């Protein structure tokens, strides 16, 4: 792995990130992170998380930037292996393996986390930021009662006596809709159903009123009726506490339900970003077109045929050159001079606040969208 190419790509991308910051917010020029960090609750700049493995360097996250204000919900979508979970664990400071190489900046409420003291990040975790996972059993310990675990989560960050903490835990269980919370307080995780465990984990994550909640596929393992209950709950709690939420999912339906901004990931990179309306109603990247065309939709007339994306997602050890999507992209030859295969497309603004990483010109994309894609969706 040549360090040079890495550095080169990094500079290029940093300038892209700076550019889009500038485009969005002329006041934020210069010290991209700091100035932004003051206004945004969470600012991620050029985040890279690579892993040294026996097979080679896995570039799980390779230059991701985004901002999130308090009270807003950002949806991160992408197929499995595109780097969603690695991103979220990175923000939480949970990549502790010495094989993980992390660079970039993560500003949480004006404080930078990547360079910060481990102890400080541990303090922030569970207090200012909290996370819920796809599998609640990975977050709940099987040998302790649900109640005891919530009490513990509370007391780590608050000087409260047992009684106060217990009261708070019961209150949280009630708040997330566990029936008879005072009694269920004493249950062990395995005595809860899947949906109840998910609620208990949410109660534990929210016990300290975190201002940032990261939810990584929180409903993927649940049935649709339970999923609806949980999404409803997250939405209500967010409204109540005004927290910033990052919702990570592969389900475009879930994201449309809950997110006001959207980031589409492919092969560890952000390939499109904008408001939910922008990305769903006027997507600007061939991969996003592919995702939307692949999906049968219950809210539309029955279509005869889905339009799949050909091929399979790439390996993150040998990410395709240039645009990582090029081996699967039907329009790879639209941009001239083979540029699609040689140069990595930068994230560029197409319309206000809507960014896409594709070499096609806006006119080329517009033509394909109106003539070929939109009529089929």
């Amino acid at each position, binding site marked *: 792995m040549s360090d040079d190419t890495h550095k080169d790509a990094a500079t290029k991308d940093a300038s892209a990130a700076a550019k889009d910051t500038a485009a969005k917010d002329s006041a934020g020029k210069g010290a991209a992170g700091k100035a932004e960090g003051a206004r945004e609750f969470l600012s991620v700049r050029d985040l890279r998380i690579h892993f040294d493995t026996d097979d080679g360097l896995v570039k799980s996250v390779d230059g991701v930037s985004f901002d999130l204000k308090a009270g807003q919900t950002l949806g991160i979508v992408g197929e*499995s292996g595109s780097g969603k979970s690695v991103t979220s664990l990175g923000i939480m400071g949970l990549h502790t393996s010495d094989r993980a190489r992390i660079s970039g900046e993560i500003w949480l409420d004006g404080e930078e986390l990547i360079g910060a003291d481990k102890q400080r990040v541990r303090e922030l975790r569970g207090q200012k930021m909290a996370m819920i996972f796809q599998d609640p059993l990975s977050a709940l310990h099987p040998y302790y009662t649900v109640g005891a675990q919530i009490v513990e989560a509370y007391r780590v960050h608050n000087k409260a006596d047992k009684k106060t903490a217990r009261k708070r835990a019961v209150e949280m269980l*009630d*708040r*997330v*809709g*566990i*029936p*008879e919370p005072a009694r269920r307080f004493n249950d062990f995780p395995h005595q809860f159903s*899947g*949906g*109840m465990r998910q*609620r208990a984990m949410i109660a534990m994550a929210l016990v300290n009123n975190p201002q940032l909640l990261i939810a990584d596929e929180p409903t993927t393992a649940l*049935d*649709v*009726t*339970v*999923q*609806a*209950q949980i*999404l*409803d*709950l997250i*939405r*209500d709690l967010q409204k109540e506490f005004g927290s910033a939420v990052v919702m990570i999912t*592969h*389900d*475009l*339906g*879930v*994201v*449309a*339900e*809950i*997110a*006001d901004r959207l980031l589409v990931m492919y092969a560890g990179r952000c390939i499109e970003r904008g*408001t*939910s*309306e922008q990305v*769903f*109603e006027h997507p600007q990247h061939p991969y996003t077109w*592919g*995702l*939307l*065309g*692949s*999906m*049968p*939709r*219950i*809210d539309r007339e*029955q*279509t005869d*045929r*889905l*339009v*799949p*994306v*050909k091929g*399979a*997602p790439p390996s993150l050890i040998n990410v395709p050159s240039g645009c990582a999507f090029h081996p699967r992209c039907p329009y790879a030859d639209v941009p001239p001079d083979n540029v699609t295969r040689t140069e990595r497309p930068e994230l560029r603004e197409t319309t206000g606040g809507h960014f896409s990483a594709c070499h096609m010109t806006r006119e080329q994309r517009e033509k394909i969208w109106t003539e070929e894609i939109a009529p089929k969706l």
Partner: protein
Amino acid sequence: MSEPTKQATNAGPAAGAAGTEPEPLLRVTDLAKHFPITKGILKRRVGAVQAVDGLSFDVRPGETLGVVGESGCGKSTMGRLVTRLLEPTGGKVEFEGRDITHLSAGRMRPMRRDVQMIFQDPFGSLNPRHTVGGIVATPFRLQGVTPDGGVKKEVQRLLELVGLNPEHYNRYPHEFSGGQRQRIGIARALALKPKLVVADEPVSALDVSIQAQVVNLLDDLQDELGLTYVIIAHDLSVIRHVSDRIAVMYLGKIVELADRDALYSSPMHPYTKALLSAVPVPDPKRRGAKSERILLKGDVPSPISPPSGCRFHTRCWKATDVCATKEPPLLEIAPGHRTACHHPENAPDQQPQDTEKVLVTPGKPAPVPAQKKGGDEGTQEQKPAK
């Protein structure tokens, strides 16, 4: 054989009900499977999981019957019963008019050619130590048949048929992606030219872009080979896309069975209605349209001791006294549209004399977000559209 049933359905929802019902390929009557729960070293029987409890339905030649329902409602058990991978506790399975309910393994063998199953997990269902060629050729070995032109040639033809490179004959499953592995499973299922394919969650382990590839493949193969499908899935958008008719299951029972369009445009069973309303729609304009959503309380009860009467009554907002005592039969309430409910939606009430509403008091009280408590006498609450 390859009568394009999909077209027929598109011609109008009534088309299927116009008298000329074709002879079913598969007929299932009162099918039940109770798994015994045993205790101690003497394996004393202490109860039973009523995984499937009294299913009746037909599958017509050339059609796709979709089966939906939430986790644990008995979909996979049903699939394994009709393919005779499981021994039924009760009821009858007929294939092409022949009773196969209790055929011995030996007598079942020729039948296996006609009825094949595709499994949910493209990773677990393929032996990692066998080459792709070996895996796809397994059915020939088991049946002791040699196809025209030899096994290798036929396997390569099958690989090509499902969109894989025939050159990959000697590779191993781990060298393939999830979608490709699912294709290998499909090629194996098709080796003996079956008439009926039961696919248990064929795409749920796959990413959306790959899912679409496999859905289209199943569709093409049906047209090309005149296959009949029973497709099991929990994703209501996928089921709508692939099915001609759909059966909705709840706690081991079919609660509704109808043509696709009828089911999605005018569901009759309250559970179907709740299920459809819960599907997240990829349209941000409808964000906050949760006002139209029916939020069911609580969880699905245990199939070990299912509720009396209508099994849905502990969660149903329309439940009345009769629902807790009398099991509603699966009746044809509109042409081709069956439902098991005393007070169906979009149809006349079956028990109009019984109007006393019961309080929904499930065994475990229903978890409902706190601020919503106390609404609508503790029953399920349907928020008014804004």
